[in-house]
């Protein structure tokens, strides 16, 4: 139950209690019929009845800045890859009992050494990670439509039926024994590898229609030339209109998502699911004192869009502590979201964009 329902329910209960205690239904008042109704918030009502809402603009995803590559390593020097000739050979203090190794920056491939490019090696030809066979999140989503074979299955033998009316026996038709003309092979019945319900089809059009624009005022000049009749819009015009609608030209910058909100149980389930992977065991004490707010977008199958995970804000710690806390939160979201969080598909608009606040206050004392 969200706060609106809770407040509404409390208000109704208070009203009913006050009405009962205050002799509101005293006999001197005209009798009236009391009909029990389900408490519903104004927002829910609006959501259920609202047929035209402005499509939610898709905001650009903030990309998290890469961590400081150099890091505050106290005793090390790190710089971009350098040729091995620049490397300072380890020079131990002759009087020291142990030779102190020196640190060197990244080096390009020395003649007989291993190449250390500045950036992590990439595998452009490698298959996408999501498609790897052993990748947990590459498994078929359990909530997808049941799969079917691509080739149609032969229909079962029909049951023997007996007609209720008798027919006269006919003489055999000599032409019937003639071999039938071979017909051309027809294309097999179209089949697919999976059943895609309508709700799961990729949206080719805005998922929500536009809020109707304000009606134009009365024409100032009644004798104005009538506008030429609009031609049917072509596809480009439709695309442009859609793009304009999605482009943030909406009058309300944060429209309320359509559909009923998530129930308290659904929110709690999501909270527990993420918390199960939120491991703070390796965080520094500073990071354990940092609360981070992480924003992300979700796919329809309940998996987080990894590239959308970003730090919205952090309180209570230094920049480095915030980074550590965010990384722990991101790992939690990716790990436990790999197979998709258990969220109601019909309320996708409600959980497409999520902000998760990771507050480690309780974890500090454990």
């Amino acid at each position, binding site marked *: 139950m*969200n706060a*609106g329902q809770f*407040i*509404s329910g409390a208000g109704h209960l208070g*009203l009913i209690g006050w009405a009962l205690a205050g002799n509101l239904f005293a006999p001197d008042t005209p009798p009236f019929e009391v009909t029990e109704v389900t408490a519903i*918030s*104004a*927002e829910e009502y609006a959501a259920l009845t609202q047929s035209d809402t402005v499509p939610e603009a898709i905001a650009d995803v903030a990309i998290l800045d890469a961590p400081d590559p150099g*890091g*505050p*390593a106290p005793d090390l020097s790190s710089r971009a890859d350098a040729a091995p000739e620049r490397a300072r050979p*380890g020079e*131990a203090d002759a*009087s*020291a*009992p*142990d030779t*102190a*190794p020196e640190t060197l920056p990244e080096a390009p491939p020395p003649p*007989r*050494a291993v190449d*250390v490019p*500045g950036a*992590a*090696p990439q*595998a452009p030809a*490698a298959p996408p990670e999501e498609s790897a066979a*052993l*990748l947990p999140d590459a498994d078929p989503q359990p909530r997808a439509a049941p799969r079917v074979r691509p080739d149609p299955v032969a229909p079962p033998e029909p049951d023997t039926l007996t007609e209720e009316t008798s027919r006269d026996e006919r003489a055999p038709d000599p032409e019937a024994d003639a071999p039938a003309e071979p017909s051309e092979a027809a294309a097999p019945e179209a089949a697919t590898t999976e059943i895609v319900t309508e709700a799961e089809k990729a949206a080719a059009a805005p998922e929500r229609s536009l809020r109707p624009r304000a009606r134009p005022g009365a024409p100032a000049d009644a004798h104005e030339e009538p506008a030429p009749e609009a031609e049917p819009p072509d596809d480009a015009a439709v695309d442009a209109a859609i793009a304009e609608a999605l482009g943030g030209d909406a009058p309300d910058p*944060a429209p*309320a998502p359509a559909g009923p909100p998530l129930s308290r149980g659904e*929110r709690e389930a*999501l*909270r527990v699911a*993420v*918390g199960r992977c*939120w*491991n*703070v*065991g*390796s*965080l520094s*004490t*500073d*990071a354990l004192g940092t609360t981070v707010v992480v924003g992300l977008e979700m796919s329809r199958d309940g998996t987080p869009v*990894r590239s959308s995970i970003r730090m919205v804000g952090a309180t209570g710690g230094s920049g480095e*502590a915030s980074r*550590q806390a965010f*990384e722990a939160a991101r790992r*939690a979201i990716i*790990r436990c979201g*790999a197979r998709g969080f258990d969220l109601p598909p019909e309320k996708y608009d409600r959980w497409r*964009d*999520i*902000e*998760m*606040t990771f507050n*480690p206050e*309780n*974890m500090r004392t454990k």
Partner: protein
Amino acid sequence: MMTRFLTLLALLVTWALPAAAQDENRGPLRIEITEGVIEPLPFAVPRFISDSAGGRDLAERITRVIAADLSGTGLFREIREDAFISPITSFSSPVQFSDWKAINAQALVTGSVSLEASGRLVVQFRLYDVFAGQEMGNGLQFVGTEEGWRRMAHKVADQVYSRITGEGGYFDSRVVFVAESGPKDDRAKRLALMDYDGANVKYLTDSSALVLAPRFSPTGDRILYTSYETGRPRIYVLDVASVQRRALEAQDGAMSFAPRFGPDGRTVVYSLTRGGNTDLYRMDIATGESIHLTSAPSIETAPSFSPDGKRIVFESDRSGSRQIYIMPAQGGPAERISSGAGLYGTPVWSPRGDLIAFTKQSKRRFHIGVMRVDGSEERLLTASFLDEGPTWSPNGRVIMFTRETQGAQGRANLYSVDITGRNLRKVPTDTGASDPSWSPLLD
């Protein structure tokens, strides 16, 4: 009439409240996660790549030291090699994150070791956040000699630890301690130096004289300690590189002990007993001049500077029992910060400055504990027959101390514990060991 008015008003309020709460439902779904798990972070460190036979042996040893360093913190859990799906065959090859995700490796350390004919050893490594599918920081390379391979492994582990936890490491550090041998009533003691993990033990003194309480300088190049070689306790300073020592200036007829460097490395604070009274003094090492810090008839000892050098924490029985006090570094009024039942002693200021470690004796048991500098949030981390002498790791995350077993044959050993009280571990030493002092991170 009034009743109807109130009814109408209540209806309006009931209708308006949900509308007021509607804003909460605008924008993204917001949830707050307050409960997580505290588990060691699983990591994988495949054997570092090497292109020579000698290098492969070193690579194996270096990899093992890195894994042991990280696992020894209690914050990380190594995934054994036999669980790996695909081996790392080339340091330059791209990482197949899916293979490491499948075994739940959240951090991956890859590296290479190159041993050149000149004896030059090159160690490179990269650290990956497997689930984020990206590298954490840049690859880093260390160059040294073959003899220094353990330090290079510690440095790699320090980097990995620092990048994941966000705080400095402590693996490339050393500990000076008192090595003990023989029964309790005839125990030989000498100063010894070792890596933080108990390896590479070197003895700094012989066992001809009793030695006590060695303490590293802030730069790790010198050690203060107390020796009875003249029959009376006296403070010496020893140069670690040359193993040369000299006695600090002493006052005739006085016993000096419990020395500790100031954060500038030029000042020493210590206890001096004269005429049955023990007070705290502060000495300039270069000039040998001392100033009186306390002048109470009670026993004041075990002083320790704050990291900024402005205050000193020490133990005193001026209230009738041993308690912990803090005073200005130049002397002056002291404030008692310990308030619990029991006896408190050997306070040591954390390198971070936020906590004070101490020994507590209560109900016939000894504890190592920490408290904030105002005495609040006291937490006891250990309990045994005899625990004493805490010393902080360079990053202020771990405390090493002495634990001695009961009986005539009881032996002293070194233990370490995280400041959360988790991960209590025995530090392996060949002999008995006591009075540890942790060095800063080495250069």
